[in-house]
């Protein structure tokens, strides 16, 4: 990205002053190196977001920002419904409520490494992953409706997952005010055999070891210690979310003119929150969030079953579950006044600071766990929301590494079997139905996640707590 148009506020904060139809400025939180490598499309997209009606304060880009659909991936923006604010399907993304959860295993590194191959195989066979895989659960109409209303709470009621998981999930495992009636029959049909499936692309289940602790006090409060073995799951709302996204993208693009909205980019399709279509999307999107929460809860249940086959009696507690493709109604301080705003986080993780009332009581003193997924060869990070994160970008941080290379470039550079062998030489086992899929997701095709996390930490968006490296990766 060209630095000429950016005002340097600090070494990790860059401002684009409002001009040419921008209602508010845009702010990029990233180091100079990360900004230099950012696509010019990020500049175009974040300034386009700043042009949308009812946007409050600024449009934000996180350190991992890259070219998305309408919004940059790694984009955060809040809208005031009373000021004509909008909701955007592109600002949430196709994979509604895609997110990460991390489980404690209570197992030692020696135990896991002594059974690494067996554990990799049982996880791979027990958890449906990749295109063409089918879940064990098939939902009829009333069950689908109950799932879309209940989220992870529904899953637990059905016997998948544990009740105490719920307090460690955003929204306590159930997004309120979901409206399954707004979810089309197409979307429901696309989901009926997909519950408890991991999906494909950059989605994964990983067994990880904790290799570094940055903040001992917070790590202790999170139950994270050097040498611990954790399991992280990255997936979303599967076919249902994709179908909702596709349908509303079209509807919002078609109706924008009727609402007097000029779209700088068709992908930025949006509708006033206080419009029929805005409310319809909100109800459908919230149902999509519940689908993702239910899905990750079911996969957690399957993970527990699989792990217990190798380690009878193992107990996997949930550290936390975050969603990084959402729009949520939240209370934020704006110029000394509390306002209810619709906060879009597209490829951005909520990062509430210490004391936030929505955090579970035992985490309230230290802030929300922020789970950042890496690639299969690098590292993942656990961060914590900070005191200042609420004022910086509505309590938001980055979500992952972000690609540095296209899928085409990646398969020209690597073969899947070669990537699998190189990782095996480093003690990392990969299980995937597709060799080409592994090549497309090669660690070298992604940006340096450490640099992204360092920028988030320096900017004060979230504090670094721990670094985890993969031992086993199940790829869809």
């Amino acid at each position, binding site marked *: 990205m060209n630095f000429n148009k950016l005002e340097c506020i600090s070494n990790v904060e860059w401002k684009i002053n409002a001009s040419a139809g921008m209602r508010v400025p845009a702010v990029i939180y990233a180091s100079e190196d990360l900004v230099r490598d950012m696509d010019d499309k990020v500049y175009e997209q974040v300034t386009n977001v700043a042009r949308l009606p009812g946007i409050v304060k600024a449009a934000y880009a996180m350190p991992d920002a890259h*070219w998305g659909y309408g919004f940059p991936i790694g984009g955060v923006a809040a809208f005031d419904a009373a000021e004509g604010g909008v909701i955007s399907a592109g600002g949430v993304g196709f994979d509604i409520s895609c997110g990460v959860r991390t489980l404690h295993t209570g197992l030692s590194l020696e135990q896991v490494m002594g059974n690494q191959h067996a554990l990799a195989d049982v996880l791979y066979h027990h958890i449906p992953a*990749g*295109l063409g895989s*089918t879940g064990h659960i098939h939902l009829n109409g009333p069950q689908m409706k109950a799932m879309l209303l209940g989220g992870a709470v529904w899953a637990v009621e059905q016997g998948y997952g544990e009740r105490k998981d719920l307090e460690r999930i955003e929204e306590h495992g159930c997004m309120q005010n979901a409206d399954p009636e707004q979810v089309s029959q197409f979307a429901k049909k696309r989901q009926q055999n997909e519950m408890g499936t991991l999906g494909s*692309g950059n989605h994964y289940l990983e067994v990880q070891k904790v290799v570094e602790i940055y903040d001992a006090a917070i790590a202790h409060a999170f139950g994270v210690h050097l040498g611990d073995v954790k399991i992280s799951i990255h997936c979303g709302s599967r076919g249902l979310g994709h179908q909702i996204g596709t349908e509303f993208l079209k509807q919002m693009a078609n109706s924008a003119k009727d609402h007097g909205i000029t779209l700088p980019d068709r992908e930025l399709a949006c509708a006033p929150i206080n419009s029929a279509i805005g409310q319809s999307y909100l109800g459908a999107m919230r149902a999509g969030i519940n689908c993702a929460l239910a899905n990750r809860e079911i996969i957690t249940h399957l993970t527990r079953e699989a792990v217990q086959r190798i380690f009878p009696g193992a107990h996997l507690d949930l550290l936390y579950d975050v969603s990084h493709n959402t729009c949520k109604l939240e209370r934020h301080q704006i110029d000394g006044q509390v306002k209810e705003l619709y906060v879009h986080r597209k490829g951005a993780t909520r990062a509430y600071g210490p004391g936030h009332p929505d955090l579970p009581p035992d985490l309230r003193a230290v802030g929300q766990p922020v789970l950042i997924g890496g690639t299969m060869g690098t590292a993942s990070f656990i961060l914590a929301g900070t005191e200042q994160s609420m004022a910086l970008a509505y309590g938001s941080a980055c979500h992952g590494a972000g*690609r540095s290379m296209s899928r085409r470039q990646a398969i020209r550079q690597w073969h899947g079997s070669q990537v699998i062998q190189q990782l095996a030489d480093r003690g990392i086992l990969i299980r995937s139905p597709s060799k080409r899929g592994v090549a497309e997701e090669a660690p070298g095709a992604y940006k340096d996640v450490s640099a992204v996390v360092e920028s988030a930490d320096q900017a004060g968006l979230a504090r670094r707590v721990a670094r985890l490296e993969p031992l086993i990766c199940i790829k869809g």
Partner: protein
Amino acid sequence: MDTASWEHFEHKADIGIRGYGDTLGEAFEQIALAMTAVVADIDAVNATTELSIRCSEDSDDTLLFAWLNALIYEMATRKMLFSRFDVEINETELNASVAGEPIEIARHQPVVEIKGATYTELAVYRANGQWVAQCVVDV
């Protein structure tokens, strides 16, 4: 000479697909092949099961968006891959016969699931005497 062909083009996070043909219908057939090739080797997909797809939109590019999303929906709900496409376009209406087979994970080794067609780089146009249809798909 039949110059129908397809290709993939670069997009940082996802992938672009493009079809060329002497007619609009042929360009739509080719871009569908390009989409299957995102997921699997087309030559490994047998055209054993046939179904028909219809859609109607008031412009060429929104018709392309509808066509690709209809295919994505059939792929997802039937768990199939398609390798043969016969497309007829009459003004704003598309009638297609498509053929493929259910996904066999071991044989097809599906790379990635396509979430949806997008408006990014979505275009239908004529260049060098040919029809071109293109789109970025979210994977």
